[in-house]
């Protein structure tokens, strides 16, 4: 492996990070192994820090992550089970909890499906063709990552609220968007908009157009080419985008909170119910719902790690 290739990879990776406030591509663990300081001629003590310094740095890193990241996660489960497993299960069996779970699943299904279709279409246009303004278009797609969740909800209130641009018309026709499922879905689509496109664009750009061009010249139609040639090549990347999109869709709080209206049993998603129960001092119930969301996050992380390894392997032959 030449140093040249690793430098190029780092440039590509930086580009993948570039204008976003959410890192959809994190370095796969296998790269770290590869990057171990290779055999050198200079004595070891010149290429690493003295033992005590190493010890202090590792201790600081481990302590910081344990206190600020691991401990909050532990608190979620400890609080959820603080009154025993019976109370935990009872809290999850409440009609309110079940309604919130159902609404969260519904909203995630709607927004992930729409963003999946859009993401693939957008990635095809952006990755497979050259046109001016491409960077600008990618920046627009990334925009929701850099907008505060609260503002993501606010923009829909301004459009569809009683005093909003379409408010009077909607009221006259008795159409409910705000404080109802359509509004919650719209806000969720907005905040999860970039995930799938973001995962696919770098991958499809790297794969180029040769395989597709060969298929077309052999007489395949556009759709055949996509489903037989492109889709198998991007399936892990697609899954990766969908996974992160889903995690955010189910966990979104700020944007949904603004448009939901907090109607109990009707427009409360799981994160909103966590807030309501917590503010009512129903800690076991609140943390029981929170523990489901925390498990979703942990599963997402595990699957993500597996997918990253797949993606890394998939790219290996192209690198060399």
């Amino acid at each position, binding site marked *: 492996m030449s*140093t040249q290739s690793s*430098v190029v990879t*780092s*440039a590509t990776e*930086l580009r993948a990070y*570039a204008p976003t406030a959410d*890192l959809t591509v994190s370095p796969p*663990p296998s790269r770290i192994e590869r*990057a171990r300081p290779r055999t*050198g001629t*200079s004595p070891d003590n*010149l*290429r*690493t820090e*003295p033992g005590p310094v190493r010890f202090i*740095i*590792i201790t*600081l*890193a*481990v302590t*910081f*992550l344990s206190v600020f*990241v*691991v*401990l*909050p996660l532990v*608190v979620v489960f400890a609080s959820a089970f603080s009154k025993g497993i019976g109370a935990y299960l009872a809290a999850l069996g409440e009609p309110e909890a079940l309604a919130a779970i159902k609404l969260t699943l519904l909203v995630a299904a709607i927004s992930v499906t729409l963003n999946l279709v*859009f993401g693939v*279409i957008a990635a095809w*246009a952006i990755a*497979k*063709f*050259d046109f*001016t*303004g491409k960077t600008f*278009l990618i920046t*627009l797609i990334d925009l929701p990552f*850099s*907008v505060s*969740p609260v*503002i993501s909800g*606010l*923009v829909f*209130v*301004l*459009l569809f609220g009683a005093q909003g641009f379409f408010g009077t018309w909607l009221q006259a026709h008795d159409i409910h968007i705000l404080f109802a499922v359509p509004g919650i879905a719209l806000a969720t689509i*907005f905040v999860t908009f970039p995930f799938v496109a973001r995962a696919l664009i770098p991958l499809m750009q790297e794969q180029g*157009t040769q395989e597709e061009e060969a298929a*077309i010249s052999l007489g395949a139609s*556009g759709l055949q*080419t*996509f489903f037989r040639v492109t889709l198998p090549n991007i399936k892990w990347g697609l899954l990766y985008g969908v996974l992160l999109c889903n995690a955010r869709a*189910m966990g*979104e*709080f700020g944007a949904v909170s603004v448009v939901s209206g907090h109607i109990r049993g009707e427009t409360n998603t799981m994160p*909103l119910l966590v807030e309501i129960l917590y503010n009512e001092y129903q800690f076991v119930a609140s943390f029981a719902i*929170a523990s489901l969301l925390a498990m979703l996050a942990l599963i*997402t*992380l595990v699957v*993500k790690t597996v997918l990253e390894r797949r993606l890394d392997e998939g790219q290996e032959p192209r690198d060399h």
Partner: protein
Amino acid sequence: MSIAVARRSSLPGFGLTMGLTLTWLSIIILLPLAGLFLKTFELSLDQFWGIITSRRTLNALKISFGLSFLAALVNLVMGTIIVWALVRYRFPGRRLFDAIVDIPFALPTAVAGVALTQLFAQKGWLGAPLAELGIKVAFTPIGIFIAMVFIGIPFVVRTVQPVLIDLDVEIEEAAASLGANRWHTVFRVILPSLIPALLTGFALAFARAVGEYGSVIFIAGNLPNVSEIAPLLIVIRLSEFRYADATAIAVVMLLASFLIIFAVNRLQRWAQTRIPAH
């Protein structure tokens, strides 16, 4: 829209996919954001200025931007230390801790919010010992700061990590063989080449903290002028049906985050022109 077409590829579907992309993008992203700016133009400049410079708004903006800046600074330092440990050293549980860095990304913000509050509340696992020392974290600005540190740490780590991994070891060896001691090599050779990535990570963590809502509001205390963040003030104004106020604050925050994206993009370009120089 200035997306001119100059297609070179012989693949089909450009017109269709580009058309659908622009349509969907316009409906979901551009129209709602345009609505925000249109709403702002309904205000006169004096009204807009009056809202932004009112005491409560100014304090909320100060709290959001000031604490975000401090939290991003802590993330910068701790993130660098974490990256260094993860990339350069071998220790038990290293891979696990590498995965743990992503938890603040993955954990829904409301869950992070209630968990941090529970942890730092007066009777919490960390809140109780801190209270004995006379430090109150939950329901004070310190709590806001803690939540912002939590939410920002992956941005610095995940931005700097790939750059440190790909850093050419030969440069270090050259510095060492030319007689530089380790201290010099780290601070004069390695850290300078990480600067673009460090600044990018800092900017991303800062931007995220400024807009953050869910993980902050539980632990914040939300006292006007003291521990009320700008996103919460937007929500409060909305619930009072003072849409103009909410919009004006939102526009200021949005412009600030656009400036940050712009800065990050410039940083990336700068980083890319530096890399091929090797």
